[in-house]
Each structure stands twice: as C-alpha cells, then as structure tokens.
C-alpha cells in the first residue's frame, strides 16, 4: 500500500547517496579545477608577507641599484619556512629590487597538490619537488621544470657535492629513467638516518661502538640490563624501513643499493649480503630489541618515548635533532652506523627535496641565483642555525648534538656510503615497503619473504 511509494523514495535516496559518494571519491581526478581553486585560496591565505614588506623597506633605502621590481614566487614544503626566511632576507640584501611571495604547505599536502599547481595557469617560479618517479618524474614528463646542467656548471655544484651525490636529482629528458641524464633540481641539506643514543644509558653499558659488531653487542647488553635497546614506533610503516636501511648498509656495498634504487638492469635485493642483513634484522626482532607493540606505536610517540628515557638507541633521521636537543639537552648523542662487513660507513641518506625552476619562471637566471644561495657554502652556517645539516662542509663552529650529527653525515659522505631512500625505486615501493616492514616486525613474514616481496614490486616496474 503506502509502503510501496515509501520504498520508492528510499530507493531514490539510496541512488542519490551512492552518486554523492562516488563524486566525492573521484573528485580527486578532476585536478584542473580543484587545484586551481586551492592555489588561489593559498595565495590569499598566505601569511608569509612579512618578508615582502621588509624587502620594500630595503629597496627604498637602496635606491641607486634599483632595477625594475621583481617578485619571485616560491612554493615550498613547510619544513623550510625558517630556511627561506633567512635566505630571502640575504637575497634581497644583494638584490634590493627582488621581493618574494612564499607559499608553504605541509609535506603530505604538498606532494598531493604540487604537480597540479605547477601545471596550472599560475605556477610559481621556484618550487620543491621530490626525488623519484611520482613527483620529479612527473614534472619532467610534463615539461614543467627546467634543466639545471648549465647552472650547475656555472656555479660549480657538481664539484661541490660530488657527481654521484646529485644523481638523485637526475632524470633522462623523457622523465622515465631515474638517476641518469639531466640534472633537474638541487638542495644542499643532508637528510641522513643515523643512531641517536641516550648518553647516560650507553655510558652504563660501555663506550661508543667502533664497528657494527660492537653495536650489535651493545644491543644485547642493553636488553640484559632491562632496557629497550632500540626505540621505534612503526605505526606508519616507514620508520622501521630506516632501521632496516642501516642494517642493510652495514652488510651490503652502498653502490649496489644505489643501483637498485635507480632501477639499473638486473639489480636485486635477493643477494647473499642482503640476506645476512635481513637475517640480522629478524634476529633483533626475535631478541626483543624493539619495544613491545612496535607496529602500534606512532613515530612521534616513539620520539617522545626516547626523550622520556625509554630506549638506549633510536635509529632515525637527522631531522629529529632539534626536537631531541630541546628534550634531552646534553644527554642526547648521535653517530653514523659504525662500519660493518660492507667495509664502509653507510646508510639510508639523501639530500633534501630538490629545488626546481619552473618552465614558466619569468627570470630563470635570477631563480638560479637564489637557488645557488640556498646551496652555497656561505649559507651552510645559516642552515646550521635553523637546525639543518648542510651537505657541504662548513667552517661554522657548531656545538652540541648538531655537531655530532654533522660529523656523522660527513663520515658517510667521505665513504660514499649514501644509499638513498629505498621507496624511490618504484611508484608503488613506498606502499610495499611500509606494509612489508610491518609484516616483518609483526612476525607475519621472515627476512627471506620480505626480500622476495620487495623484489617482486621492483621486477613488476623494471622487468
């Protein structure tokens, strides 16, 4: 009776609901319109106009060198806010006619929207990218960024950083072969994974390890003493990857690992040395060297736990230095993973997100000049002052934890032990690795299976 018409209404309701769901789920595909709107909103919401105001004041005071005023549009990941504040101030001192319009976005957001903004009608002059296929490869394929080889020669970047170090910013012209060909970006900040330690706790166990074997011994001693040997939170999946990367570099030559990341033909992680590394990692898991429930602990919480005194070591990226310095003061120490069977000091490490010049930049030479300031030896001191580690040697007298972190990076660079980030290897590798490290730590798979699964992803993309 009436229920029939009632149910018809319900049916229409159901269809509408489904339509709304799908349009919500798929609106991400409609990049052009959504991203353009975002862009405007960002420009409006941008509160980083303080630098621009300063510039005006300076420009007025320095009339004699006045050229036509130029505004450099910079789109950057939010972690570089302090760095950019220093750099833009210095640059406008040198070039008073230049002012900056800076837009910042947090990392996850940034990686989602940056390609869309760079391909929009109103792209910035200078922008961050990200190493690997999903961002840099895309920007090259789309013809959105300029090659930097000429600038690299002009400013001497290759000699300063070492040829191999800059390979992470290279792609062939068609954007399909990572690690080879044209240089598209550069950054002077070193983002290295290393070993933080609690000085008090390590002091009670023994001295600083000089080999990987000694480090392994200290873990056992820490466990025996009732401590958590390695603080780790792997809810996100990637933190354990950084730990594994250090074990990997202890056993396997760094050059082989880099070849694998760059997709060189025939590269594989299923090798004898890699098996030894995976077996060692498994042993650490089985010995209980990681906190209980490691897959359920968030990364930030694990850092907080380490600061609170839980854990003798924490294997993590050097971007934690400022946090640990503030939280632990003189009790926090850092060293690069000591040399293992591979014979060199190595580990998961790379330079920071590349700075790119967009193809629509109004004055590419000026943009290059600004990027050169960011990666210059002189600016290395300033990087240290905002807690960043410069990949270029600096004469600054750094003190405390940052000095140890800088020394650690230097040790890896000296041995050419940089192994890059494994998740750059294929577009899907990040997801594969995060899931597989959790399964490995959770005991769902063993080291051999871990290597096979990871290689399967690599083979699918490079085979």
């Amino acid at each position, binding site marked *: *009776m*009436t*229920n*029939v*018409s*009632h*149910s018809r*209404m*319900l*049916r229409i*309701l*159901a*269809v*509408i*609901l*489904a*339509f*709304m*769901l*799908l*349009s*919500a*789920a*798929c*609106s*991400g*595909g*409609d*990049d052009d319109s959504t991203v353009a709107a975002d862009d405007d909103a960002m420009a409006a919401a941008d509160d980083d106009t303080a630098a621009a105001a300063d510039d005006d004041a300076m420009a007025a005071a320095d009339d004699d060198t006045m050229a036509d005023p130029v505004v450099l549009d910079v789109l950057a990941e939010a972690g570089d806010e302090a760095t950019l504040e220093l750099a833009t101030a210095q640059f406008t001192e040198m070039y008073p006619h230049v002012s900056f319009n800076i837009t910042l976005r947090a990392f996850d957001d940034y*990686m*989602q929207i940056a*390609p*869309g903004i760079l391909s929009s009608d109103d792209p910035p002059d200078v922008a961050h990218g990200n190493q690997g296929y*999903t961002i840099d490869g*895309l920007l090259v*394929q*789309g013809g*959105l960024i300029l090659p930097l080889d000429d600038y690299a020669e002009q400013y001497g970047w290759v000699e300063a950083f070492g040829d191999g170090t800059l390979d992470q910013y290279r792609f062939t012209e068609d954007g399909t072969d990572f690690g080879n060909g044209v240089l598209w970006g550069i950054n002077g900040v070193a983002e290295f994974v290393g070993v933080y330690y609690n000085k008090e706790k390590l002091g009670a166990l023994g001295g600083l390890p000089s080999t990987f074997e000694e480090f392994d011994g200290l873990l056992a001693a820490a466990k025996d003493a009732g401590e958590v040997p390695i603080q780790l939170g*792997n*809810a*996100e*999946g990637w933190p354990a990857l950084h730990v594994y990367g250090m074990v990997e570099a202890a056993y396997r030559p760094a050059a082989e690992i880099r070849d694998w990341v760059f997709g060189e033909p025939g590269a594989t992680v299923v090798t004898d040395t890699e098996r030894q590394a995976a077996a060692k990692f498994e042993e650490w898991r089985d010995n209980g060297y990681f*906190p209980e*429930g*490691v*897959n*359920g*602990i*968030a990364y930030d*919480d694990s850092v907080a736990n380490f600061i609170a005194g839980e854990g003798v070591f924490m294997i993590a990226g050097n971007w934690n230095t400022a946090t640990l310095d503030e939280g632990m003061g003189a009790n926090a120490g850092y060293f690069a993973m000591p040399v293992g069977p591979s014979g060199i000091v190595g580990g998961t490490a790379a330079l920071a997100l590349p700075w790119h010049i967009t193809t629509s930049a109004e004055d590419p030479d000026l943009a290059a000049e600004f990027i050169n300031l960011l990666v210059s030896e002189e600016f290395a001191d300033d990087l240290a002052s905002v807690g960043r580690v410069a990949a270029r040697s600096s004469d600054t007298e750094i003190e405390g934890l940052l000095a140890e972190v800088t020394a650690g990076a230097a040790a890896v660079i000296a041995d050419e032990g940089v192994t890059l980030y494994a998740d750059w290897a294929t*577009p*899907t590798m*990040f*997801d594969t690795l*995060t*899931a597989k490290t*959790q*399964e490995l730590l*959770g005991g*769902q798979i063993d080291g051999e299976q871990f290597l096979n699964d990871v290689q399967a992803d690599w083979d699918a993309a490079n085979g």
Partner: protein
Amino acid sequence: MEPSGPGDRSPRGRANRPPRADRAAPRGPAGRVQPVAYLYLLPAFAFFAVFAVAPLVHAFKLSFYEWNGITDQSWVGLDNYVTVFTDPKVRAALWNSVILIVFYAVLPISVALAVVGLMARVRIRGRTAFRAVLFVPTILPLTVVAVAWRWVYAPDGPLNFGLDLIGLDFVSRAWLGDFTFALPSMGMVGTWVTFGLVFVLFAAGVQKIPPELYESARLDGAGIIREFFAVTLPELRGEITVAMILTVTAALRNFDLVFVMTRGGPGTNTEVPSMFIYRSVFQIREIGLGAAIGVILMLELLAVNLAVLWYRRRGDLSA
C-alpha cells in the same frame, strides 16, 4: 523528528495519510502532470547535474584511460578494471569492507533493536538525555573520532590501562598494530559512531507504533520476546531499511577512520577500497586506476543497497 504527543497516537498515522504522490505533483484536468511542473525541478536538478552527475560521468570516462594528471591521457580500454580484479590486495580490501559492514551495520542495528524492544516495556528515566549522549558520536567529525580512538587504543592508552588495572594485562596489546585485532578494533569505532544514529531512529519509530497494538498483544498473552517479534520488529521495518542503507554506505565508503588510525596497516590488514583510490590518485598518480576502483566501489554500494531495498519491498508486498 515529528512531535508525538499522546493525541496523534491513536489513529494509525502513517497508514491513514493520503498517498504522497497525490500531493506532490499538481495535476491538470486530465490527471496528467503539467509540463510546467518540471520547471520547478530544474534548479535542484541543475545543482545535482553539475556537482554529482558530471563528476560521475567524468570519473567513469577516466577509468578507461591511463593518466598521471599532467601529461596526455591515453585510452587503455578495460585495463584498469583488469588490474583491479587481478590485484589480490584490492580483493582483500573489498573483503575487509564487507567485514566492516558487520561492525557498522549489523552490530549496531541488532543492539539498538534489543534496547528499543526493552524500552517498549520498561520506562527509562532521562531517556532524552540518554538519547542525546548516544547521538553525539554521529555528529562528531570522523577525523576527530579517529584521533581520539587512536589514543584510546595506543599501547599506553586508557584501554590498556583499564585492562591492566583489573588484572587483564595479558589481554592488553597495541590494538591498532596487532595483525588479529586491528580490523575489529577499528570496526568497533564504527559501531560506536553509527549506534547513536540507529538508536535514535528506532526510538523515534517505536513512539509512532500505536499503543493499541502492544495492548492487544499483551491481552493475547504475548511476553516481551513475542511482543518484540510480533509488534516492534515489523513496525520498524521502514526505519531498519533506512538504518541499513546509511550504515552500510558508511561502512563501504570508510576512509577517514582508516587514514587517520592505521593507513591500512599493519601490513595490509585494514586496507579498504577508498584507501586505494587515495593512493592511486595522489601517491602513484594512476588516476584512471583510482577512477576504476571508484566505479567498482559505487557499483558494490548500489548492489548492496538495492538488495536491502528489494528485500524490504518484497516483505511489504507479502505482508
């Protein structure tokens, strides 16, 4: 909600109302819909077309292309669909979303029915306040809910603290990092969120059931269980259908909770289809693949909801 004073309870409100279709459209002398009537639909339809139909059609089209969002699109036919159906990870995610239906729909509806059945007999003091509190999870943003529950489930969070306190320390664990308990733990949050809505829906429905029905059931000697199955349950069929549609949809489209609480982990244990859409579009930038998963998810949703409605309608006709 409609006010339901004792006055409008006695006649069977719903049954005696004129059929809605008669009131909805103005009719001409011949009893046919006048063309001008469609004009009134135009504004709403335009809105619907621009914001729902157009993106849907666009997404459907994209699902047949390979596209990274920047360079040219290239037609690949059904390749994206083949990829989806041959990827065991996507199949596992679809299966997870079916399991979540138990937590989002079946569990809250069963519990709410039981409570409502009880309420038909037992007068509960402060019922309005009770209902308001239960409804709160429904109006909270899901990201807020997810952050709060991530804290509750944390290894040193309140849940484990409580378990340790009452001597159940062998039960406590890192709930969201546990390969056995991560999915059920997240499912329970879904139950918590949808229960309030379902309960309020049923409680309102029960108030509209004429008391005479209960009276005659009791005169015939029905106990509380019999009364529930003979009166409450059949009279709530409409509400149950609405509840099913809303909660099943919530279960299948679940993204917020997974994204904030586990990102699909540990391993791939809490992967759901919408996470794959997100990854395909924003991380690996295979927009066609994301669109294909979106289309399949929509069809899954449509199929489940149509099944619910079909079952409902069949029940009506036979009743």
